[in-house]
């Protein structure tokens, strides 16, 4: 098989993790870093090789009837639940897996490289745990790669957990900081909650379908299988429905919740902004480009099942569309640039989710028509482009933070003069995300909007509006960082462009952000592996560009130079502004539920119950026996006559009772 070496793509990061984790302590920082980067470089090269071979190769069985086939490279049993229900650990390549390989390795490599500079010092002090950092990065890369090449649902679940824990470890990298500590915990627990639903979904799905394998679930001969599976679950009268929905709907909804946790969909998004406590490169890699799209990837992976289950799709649509707007609205008022970017990420991922959800526009089950699957393609395309420009934005932000030692945009302002390269790179990123042609974001976002309009005019307008909002808040950030006012130098040395290890990735990513839009995604990442005929819908594109420009213009007006307009606007609707700034109090709500309801209301009472009632009962038995022992001591009075009374009465009583028993019975 030409793809056998794919295993190396997975294995190298794993090896790097073990090697750096175990032996790293004994090595110098520099060596560790270089080894990590080199390892990642090899991985990246191999991954590119795999992806190129997959998309453009013409090996046997690779393309059948113009449809790219999913290729299972390697699939040994890992854990047998029953003879038939087996978890396998394998590597499967299909369009989106191949695309994800590229995305992950690219961004990961950039981040590895970037971190050489970024992590060398922390607020001026030599960074501790450099080796640990690289080990964790490798672990994350491994987990994420394992996730995308999964051959079955359970493998995805396994790597879901793995990326979760890598993310936990990296967010909590500065473990002495309480905020990081708290954030990492929060991230893990929230995603864990989502994973619980994911697990339940898997249980339901695997029970009815009897398999975890995508081969059975979604990649049967020409997808007929997934339809069969779906039909057998929905159509089988013996299968229980619960609260009016079929088992299938429940399963897919639960699985979506699992994905939503990772992808920070409302209301499970609360961990992502906090996750920005981690090192900025980590945010770029995990919380912008790769891990957070795992949910999207999951839904995409099971897309053929979702297609036949409109109810679940509707859930995704509503959640996605709402989250897109909600996050964008919050992003407009954040002052911490990483948080703002985080909400932007949430919003963008919601775009992808929405796009997936509108994909089966008319709810047709079987009939494949023009435009069907457009959303899917657009979503994947956007995933790809977004990864690039969002990574770019985050790395830029990292460079800025590294320069000024602060996350607050009030500490920045006017940096354009000091950091021109960073400024231009950031601008490119902003243009890309705002959807200005010919930057990458334009192409992908445009197709999403088309798909939304296909679904319904309302959805289209809504998403267009969000797109405009996106342009606004991105440029708000941009202007606030680089213009607005003269920079006040707080630290002893002036901010400047960072060393080449950090700048080079910016440049590379900026270039990719410019050109990525021209990747022929409609030929590559379609849901069935075939070609999809798309053309630019000028009405939609024009509208969206217009809206974006309006947004940019507004941002320019408000934030290019220091002026009281933003303040006035904020005070004119103070309540709304504060609510948005406080992220609509979702964190407080969670805080209330976890602390007041669960901790104080459930855990404490249970602990009390355990000590006082259960344990108390056991102690009561013991104490009761002791008391009884004390109580009977009077019987032993020490007097002979007392003994004899007991003796004689005892004998008589024995006789009398037996007598009565014999007489009565």
């Amino acid at each position, binding site marked *: 098989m030409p793809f056998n070496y794919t295993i190396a793509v997975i294995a190298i990061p794993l090896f790097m993790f073990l090697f750096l984790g175990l032996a790293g302590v004994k090595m110098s920082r520099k060596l560790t870093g270089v080894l990590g980067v080199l390892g990642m470089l090899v991985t990246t090269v191999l991954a590119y090789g795999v992806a190129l071979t997959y998309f453009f190769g013409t090996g046997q069985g690779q393309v059948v009837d113009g449809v790219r086939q999913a290729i299972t490279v390697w699939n040994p049993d890992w854990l047998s639940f029953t003879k038939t229900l087996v978890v396998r650990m394998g590597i499967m390549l299909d369009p989106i897996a191949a695309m994800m390989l590229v995305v992950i390795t690219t961004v990961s490599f950039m981040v590895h490289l970037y971190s050489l500079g970024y992590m060398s010092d922390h607020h001026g002090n030599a960074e501790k745990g450099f080796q640990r950092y690289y080990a964790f990065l490798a672990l994350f890369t491994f987990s994420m790669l394992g996730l995308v090449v999964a051959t079955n649902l359970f493998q995805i679940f396994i790597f879901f957990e793995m990326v979760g824990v890598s993310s936990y470890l990296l967010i909590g990298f500065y473990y002495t900081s309480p905020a990081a500590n708290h954030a990492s915990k929060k991230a893990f627990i929230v995603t864990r909650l989502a994973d619980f639903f994911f697990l339940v979904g898997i249980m339901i799905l695997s029970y009815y379908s009897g398999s975890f394998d995508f081969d059975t679930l979604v990649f049967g001969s020409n997808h007929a299988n997934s339809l069969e599976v779906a039909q057998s679950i929905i159509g089988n009268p013996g299968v229980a429905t619960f609260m009016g929905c079929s088992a299938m709907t429940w399963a897919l909804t639960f699985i979506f919740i699992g994905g939503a946790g990772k992808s920070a969909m409302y209301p499970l998004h609360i961990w992502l902004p906090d996750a920005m406590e981690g090192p900025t490169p980590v945010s770029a890699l995990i919380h912008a480009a790769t891990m957070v799209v795992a949910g999207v990837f999951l839904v995409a992976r099971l897309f053929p099942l979702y297609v036949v289950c409109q109810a679940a799709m509707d859930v995704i649509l509503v959640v996605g569309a709402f989250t897109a707007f909600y996050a964008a609205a919050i992003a407009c008022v954040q002052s911490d640039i990483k948080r703002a970017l985080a909400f932007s990420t949430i919003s963008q991922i919601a775009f992808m989710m929405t796009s997936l959800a509108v994909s089966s526009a008319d709810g047709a089950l079987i009939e494949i028509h023009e435009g069907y699957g457009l959303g899917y393609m657009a979503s994947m395309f956007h995933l790809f482009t977004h990864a690039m420009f969002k990574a770019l934005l985050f790395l830029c932000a990292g460079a800025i933070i590294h320069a000024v030692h602060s996350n607050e945009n009030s500490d920045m302002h006017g940096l354009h003069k000091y950091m021109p390269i960073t400024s231009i790179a950031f601008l490119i990123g902003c243009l890309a995300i705002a959807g200005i042609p010919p930057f990458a974001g334009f192409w992908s976002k445009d197709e999403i909007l088309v798909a939304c309009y296909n679904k319904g005019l309302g959805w289209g307008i809504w998403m267009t509006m969000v797109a405009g909002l996106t342009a606004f808040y991105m440029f708000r950030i941009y202007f606030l960082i680089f213009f607005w006012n003269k920079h006040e130098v707080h630290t002893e040395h002036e901010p400047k462009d960072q060393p080449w290890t950090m700048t080079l990735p910016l440049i590379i990513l900026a270039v990719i952000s410019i050109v990525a839009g021209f990747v022929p995604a409609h030929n590559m990442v379609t849901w069935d592996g075939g070609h999809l005929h798309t053309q630019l819908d000028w009405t939609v594109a024009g509208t969206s560009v217009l809206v974006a420009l309006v947004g940019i213009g507004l941002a320019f007006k408000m934030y290019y130079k220091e002026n009281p307009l933003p303040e006035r606007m904020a005070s004119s609707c103070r309540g709304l502004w504060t609510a948005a700034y406080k992220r609509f109090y979702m964190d407080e709500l969670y805080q209330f539920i976890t602390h007041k309801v669960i901790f104080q209301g459930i855990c404490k009472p249970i602990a009390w119950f355990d000590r006082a009632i259960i344990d108390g009962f056991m102690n009561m038995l013991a104490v009761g026996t002791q008391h009884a022992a004390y109580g009977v*001591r009077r019987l*032993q*009075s*020490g*007097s*002979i*006559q007392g003994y*004899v*009374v007991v003796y*004689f009465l005892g004998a008589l009583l024995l006789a009398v009772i037996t007598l009565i028993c014999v007489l009565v019975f």
Partner: protein
Amino acid sequence: MNLTLLMYLIPSIIMFGCGVYGFLTRKNMIAIMISLELMLNSVDINFVVFNRFLFPGQFEGMFFTLFAIAIAAAETALALAIIINVFRAIKNVDINQINKLKF
């Protein structure tokens, strides 16, 4: 009027009751021992009476009584020895005073 078995048992039972009563109420250990003699004696009467009335011709009850008298004698001797032994220690024979060991 016939002298039946039960008529002979009546004094025996009463004697036994008296013995029990004496045992429980007397304070003097020797008096208690005397009460015990009453009890033992009543048992002897029982045996003799049963033997004579119910099972004449074989003398198991009679012999039991014979041996019981011997046993009673041995018991009494030992008990009195012990009473005197206690008397040496506490200088009286009040049974209420030998209750140091209790609970």
